[in-house]
């Protein structure tokens, strides 16, 4: 028992934690961190668990994330099974009552939204399919707008003293967002009807938004890496189709899309998948500016 005393002695020697007024927000992905920052402004202090170079499917419940989850007032994630490999561990080990499933501090962006590609049959022989549908909603600005509306309500619920400020921030954001969406849609009009190949089924909502069609993926099945054989099969499948571009996220291995580029000639394009991966994408507006620009400049 003397060891226990020693342990607690050590603990009491820890520096006192400074009191912070800002709402502590734990964002599973940078896009939700950026959105919370837009609506919360100086009232929130946002920590993002992942970065643009990382695949949100495969994050480890590492010590720094546990410490941040423990201190969070609001946890904002994509949901729909995207974080199934790590978020449950963070929640279970955090000792934080505020962010547990169903609490006001637990916010899943995909909740209440109609998701695309909901599987008819759940079988892992079809790859790592998400039962709830494709979770990569952040590439459709209409989805962002819908999440913003719900997030505004939630922030006001958690921090009622500042409700007016959140509402004001939301109104301002939404106004600028609607204007920006109209501009992106105007600029991207020439992309309508184009045929696309993606590395992973990560761009479904982008294609849906801009009226493009996905004619193939480099991954033979979701979550299964491309192999020499699967690429040859894809090549045959694409015969006679005029592919506009081969698209990948920054965390995807470039080799498969470069290989396909060498064989079919269509440009291989790396699109930002979230906020902050490259210059110009440090907020949500920049994220879509760069996405649309890169697609237009592919040819």
């Amino acid at each position, binding site marked *: 028992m003397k060891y226990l005393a020693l342990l607690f002695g050590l603990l009491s020697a820890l520096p006192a*934690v400074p009191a912070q007024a800002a709402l502590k927000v734990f964002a599973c992905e940078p896009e939700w961190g950026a959105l919370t920052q837009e609506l919360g402004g100086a009232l929130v202090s946002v920590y993002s668990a992942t970065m643009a170079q990382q695949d949100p499917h495969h994050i480890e419940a590492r010590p720094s994330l*546990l410490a941040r989850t423990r201190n969070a007032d609001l946890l904002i994630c994509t949901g729909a*099974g995207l974080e199934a*490999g790590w978020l449950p561990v963070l929640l279970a080990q955090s*000792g934080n009552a505020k962010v547990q499933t169903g609490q006001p501090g637990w916010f899943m962006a995909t*909740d209440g939204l109609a998701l695309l590609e909901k599987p008819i049959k759940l079988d892992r022989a079809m790859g790592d399919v998400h039962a709830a*549908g494709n979770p990569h909603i952040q590439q459709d600005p209409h989805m962002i707008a819908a999440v913003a509306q719900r997030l505004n309500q939630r922030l006001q619920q958690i921090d009622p003293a500042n409700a007016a400020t959140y509402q004001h921030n939301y109104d301002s954001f939404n106004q600028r967002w609607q204007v920006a969406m109209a501009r992106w849609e105007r600029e991207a009009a020439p992309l309508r009807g184009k045929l696309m190949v993606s590395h992973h089924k990560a761009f479904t909502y982008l294609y849906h938004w801009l009226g493009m069609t996905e004619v193939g993926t480099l991954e033979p099945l979701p979550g299964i890496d491309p192999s020499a054989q699967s690429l040859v099969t894809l090549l045959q499948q694409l015969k006679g189709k005029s592919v506009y571009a081969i698209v990948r996220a920054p965390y995807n291995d470039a080799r498969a899309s470069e290989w396909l580029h060498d064989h079919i000639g269509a440009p291989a394009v790396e699109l930002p998948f979230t906020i902050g991966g490259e210059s110009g994408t440090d907020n949500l507006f920049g994220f879509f500016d760069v996405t649309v620009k890169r697609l237009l400049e592919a040819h």
Partner: protein
Amino acid sequence: MRVTPILLGVLALPLPMAAHASTRSDVAQLRAELEAMRSSYESRIAQLEKRLAESEKKENALAQNREQTPPAYSAPVADAAVMQAPSAPTTDVMPKISLVLQGGYRAEKDIANRTPVGFLPASSDTGSKRGFSVDESELVLDANVDPYWKGHATFSIIDGAANVEEAWFQSLQLGDGLTAKGGRFLSNIGYLNNQHPHMWDFADAPLMYQVMFGDRLSQDGVQVTWLAPTDQYLEVGAEIGNGNAYPGTSHPGAGDWTVFAHTGGDVGISSNWRAGISYVQARADNRKGTINDLNDVSADTYFSGKSRAWLADFIWKWAPNGNNHNQYFKLQSEYFHRNEGGQLDCSNNLASGGSCVGLTDNYTSQQSGWYLQGVYQFMPRWRVGLRQDQLNVGTVDLSGNAAYLPATSYKPEKTSIMLDYSPSEFSRFRVQWAQDRSIQNLPDNVLTLQYIMSLGAHGAHTY
């Protein structure tokens, strides 16, 4: 829609009763009003039905035209409605069920007691397992019980025997970084202890865990952990249990207790680490262990006394930009130091040609050991690993039993290399080769081929 007229009828029920105290004209007037209300509602219902039919028509037209209709244009659902009716009730089957299949093939010498020399073994089943074998299948169930508790069970099943590996509940709502757990669980000491075999990077547990806990320390009791409110990860915790797992034996009261502390963090975006220190104390009453005596004959020993151990653990993980899909490296090491003190009985085995006469005498030991391992994923799906195991028999005082049991200063060690291939996140094949020098004068080369298949719910793994 049809509910509305019924509702109106129900509302109208108390009215005749009130009418008793009133005049006939009042009743007539009420009837007229009610009639007016009914007809107005009926016309409104008809209008609503018409609008519904129109919107259904529109929706059908939209569905045919879906390619041109972005999904987000549908109005987002309000918060309260989402809580009551999630969009995808199929996502979380309650409880989440997963099944892990493991097995393989092993080639090694046929040795009856594979316990590293100089250590009292953690189980009596330490013989070689050669050829094809199916290891235990693990069945895991996990769900939130209610808003306050989470429940979890892991059963290992093999050949007519089902073992309860874990069966615990855990708090969700204590807050302030506190979490309490009760039931049977894997102790949080060290690093590898609370990981099930399918999560291991090698086909077997390090020698250190084999001699300390017989692979791992399981607790029947309670655990409390506390996470410090700092950005630097710091977890402290304690457990108290009946001590029925090695190195203790079952006790009516508290048979063993542990305390542990872990800290860790990130170094840049590519590296992260965790380090910890733990202490375990257990009481043993007639703890059985089968070893070979001085005549090299199998002998049953019974230890009664106290077992105290310190563990230190360290793990460092690296992945370029924190993206572990293509490449990563992890370096892991643990160290233990154990003191045992009490009485040892070596039961009489003269009849089978052994040397023990059934003497009970004092026994003390101070022993230690460590392992160091590195695992490198050099391309997607493929990993290689190297592990070095080392034990230090230390000082063992057998007192009178020194006349019957062997004493040694031999240092058991083992070197393992492995290569594994994972076609997907849910399947893995492994080949492992080990040079096992844990038994004096009996060096062995062990070849293991192994498969691990995970079915069902997507399990979340700890760090």
